[in-house]
């Protein structure tokens, strides 16, 4: 067991760091030595104050400095007899005026004092239930506190950040769906995987995260050069973790296509300078990398194909199927049930895919404040659908003719009795009828 912690514990210069601000929003900032970071209304501070701090801490911006705040517990609320019965919603709430507010801020009054002032001027405050009071205070705190919390760059947190920021760019891939995809694909250190990721690199990030720099990840993209995979920047991967990934595009992954780069060979005699030599060598290295990546793909026997793509999944399967090993996991995500239903129909008609199964993911978060446990009032409706199948090698002779004829008859009968379409690969279902 390595003594070195595998977790990235502390913020380093060069990290992209996620911050949670009091209103619940998350911001992404780049931490570089001697850089000033500004977070809108909250104020600004020097990056250096964050470097070497543990992820997960909460800071208050005091002037231009950061003060670490102790971890916040949930406060138990005492219930009272208040029932809101006597509260009259007729506008008798007299808020602190904007002028008073500005004056207080000007004078550097601390947020907790501003809130206290507001409460004092709230005529009905004492009539409210404790829960209502707490809610009111929280709302005010969120509005005025100059605090933030750094968010550890885990797959969970990064996925949540992107899902909230721009669901479309990650193709509605919610963390529960992504986690299930990684499990269904059996991603493990040392494996070899094919990834088609039009979800801004979220899938690739998940795969790399679970591999820890051991194995091989080949992504196929629709741009000439390896795409940027913007999600990866928040993951702050070490070079080792990223080193196992290489990319082809849909043209260069065709066996009968000769990429033009490989034809750009310069004769040795024509090189007239060191600079030109560097350029030529760079080009050659790129050509060699492309060549070796292609060879790697064409060698096949990949252990999983994971897809979150805007392209027709049938056309993706058609291209990549021959590179998948036996017992390989095929995992395809789509925001739309229609796309994967159609695909499932095609796959179950083929003897190459065992038991293609379509499922929908569902995730719910709860509020767990004492005495007030309930599901969040809003939830994300669309986490998408996952199709999982196992690649198998068919043996058309596996069921001899005499049995086949009898089984076909039984299958027809079984079909009549059941509306549910059973997978054609489940030869056993039929045989079960035989026995029972």
């Amino acid at each position, binding site marked *: 067991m390595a003594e070195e912690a595998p977790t990235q514990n502390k913020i380093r210069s060069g990290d992209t760091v996620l911050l949670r601000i009091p209103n619940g929003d998350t911001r992404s900032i780049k931490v570089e030595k001697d850089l000033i970071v500004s977070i809108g209304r909250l104020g600004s501070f020097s990056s250096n104050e964050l470097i070497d701090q543990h992820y997960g801490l909460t800071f208050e911006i005091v002037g231009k400095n950061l003060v670490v705040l102790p971890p916040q517990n949930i406060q138990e609320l005492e219930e009272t007899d208040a029932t809101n019965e006597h509260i009259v919603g007729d506008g008798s709430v007299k808020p602190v005026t904007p002028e008073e507010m500005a004056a207080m801020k000007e004078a550097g009054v601390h947020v907790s004092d501003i809130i206290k002032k507001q409460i004092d001027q709230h005529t009905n405050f004492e009539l409210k239930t404790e829960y*209502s009071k707490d809610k009111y205070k929280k709302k005010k705190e969120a509005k005025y506190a100059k605090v933030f919390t750094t968010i550890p760059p885990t797959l969970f947190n990064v996925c949540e950040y992107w899902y909230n920021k721009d669901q479309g760019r990650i193709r509605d891939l919610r963390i529960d769906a992504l986690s299930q995809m990684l499990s269904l694909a059996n991603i493990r250190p040392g494996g070899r995987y094919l990834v088609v990721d039009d979800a801004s690199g979220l899938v690739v990030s998940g795969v790399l995260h679970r591999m820890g720099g051991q194995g091989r990840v080949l992504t196929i993209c629709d741009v000439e050069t390896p795409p940027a995979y913007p999600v990866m920047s928040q993951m702050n991967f070490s070079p080792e973790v990223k080193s196992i990934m290489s990319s082809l595009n849909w043209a260069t992954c065709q066996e009968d296509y000769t990429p033009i780069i490989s034809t750009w060979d310069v004769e040795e005699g024509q090189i007239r300078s060191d600079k030109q030599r560097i350029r030529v060598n760079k080009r050659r290295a790129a050509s060699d990398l492309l060549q070796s990546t292609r060879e790697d793909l064409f060698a096949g026997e990949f252990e999983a194909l994971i897809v979150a793509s805007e392209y027709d999944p049938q056309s993706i399967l058609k291209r990549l199927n021959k590179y998948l090993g036996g017992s390989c996991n095929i995992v395809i995500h789509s925001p739309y049930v229609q796309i994967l239903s159609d695909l499932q129909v095609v796959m179950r008609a083929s003897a190459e895919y065992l038991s293609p199964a379509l499922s929908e993911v569902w995730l719910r978060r709860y509020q767990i404040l004492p005495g007030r446990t*309930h599901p969040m009032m809003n939830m994300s*409706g669309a986490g998408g659908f996952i199709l999982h199948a196992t690649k198998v090698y068919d043996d058309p002779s596996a069921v001899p003719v005499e049995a086949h004829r009898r089984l076909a008859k039984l299958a027809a009968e079984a079909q009549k009795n059941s509306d549910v379409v059973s997978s054609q690969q489940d030869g056993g279902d039929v045989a079960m009828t035989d026995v029972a």
Partner: protein
Amino acid sequence: MWSTAREIAPGDTVIAWLTRDLIQPLVVTPGKDLNIRFGYYRHDDLVGVPYGSKVGSRNGKGFIHVLRPTPELWTMALPHRTQILYLADIAFITSQLDIKPGSRVVEAGTGSGSFSHSVARASKAKEEFTRHGLADIVTLTHRNVCKDGFTVESAADAVFLDLPMPWSAIPQAKKALRKDCLTRICCFSPCIEQVQRTVTALNDAGFTEITMYESLVRPHEVDQVPPMRSIDDACEILKKAEQKREDKRLRQIAATRQNLANKRKREGEADLAEDESHHDTGSGKRTKTDEIDDIPQEPISLDRNIAGSSEVADSTKPTAKTTVSKAFPEVRGHTSYLTFACLLPGSPEVAVDA
């Protein structure tokens, strides 16, 4: 209640539908105007128009639909009243409490459990019920039911409690329910802790068949999209782009060579030693060629809007659209827990009030 006539008459309450999120009730009052961001209308224009009509504004700035009110539209039209019950919950509760023509139902707390605008709401709601001709059907009172009880005794077929502490009103609710047949109660509680205390109170009060449900609705968005692009399209686009780039590179190399040759011709062989540096820091054109020699820096986008790619896409794709749907990204994840129970007639516990 609301008009059932085909056409709108003066004095009718109608629902003006501006957009899905902007629906407002209107009492048609001849002589009055309606001036909204969707145009200018006269109430007189609505009189005699069939319910359900699209009505254009007088100033051509838009139109509205005038609809017949329904409880559902009424609820949608009042989005700012706190914590109105949701359609799915109302519908489910109605079925579970077996509410039907002739049922006598007692409701306590029409507002939210956490912040009831009781006084203000009561007067406002009373006025509304009267206007809608419901005054004979709905009796409205403002009182602390937990302390003072309900106004009826052994009379209700069903009780609906939407209170912050429903458990404290259960003995009173039991009093209000009739004892000569099976009756029902529903408690509407946002938090599970309320449910737990309510279940205990219901059980202690002799209610049976205690069940609890959550009912939600997931609205879906439907979209008509072109059929998904095939990898073949992507391939073609990539190949063409690569070929174009290569052609350009070759043309530029040829042009540069030609330039060099011309230069050599003009300047003679003497400057040959200088050429190296010129080659590297040379003209913009030359530098460009260098860059193209290397791995291209800018990826080719496959965006459908790019002219270069659209021809390929168009030629290989059928024009038929496919329909896809998915749940809206953010949907309501919780309204309330609905706790139900029955009170059986003649059971010994019924005689003993808590």
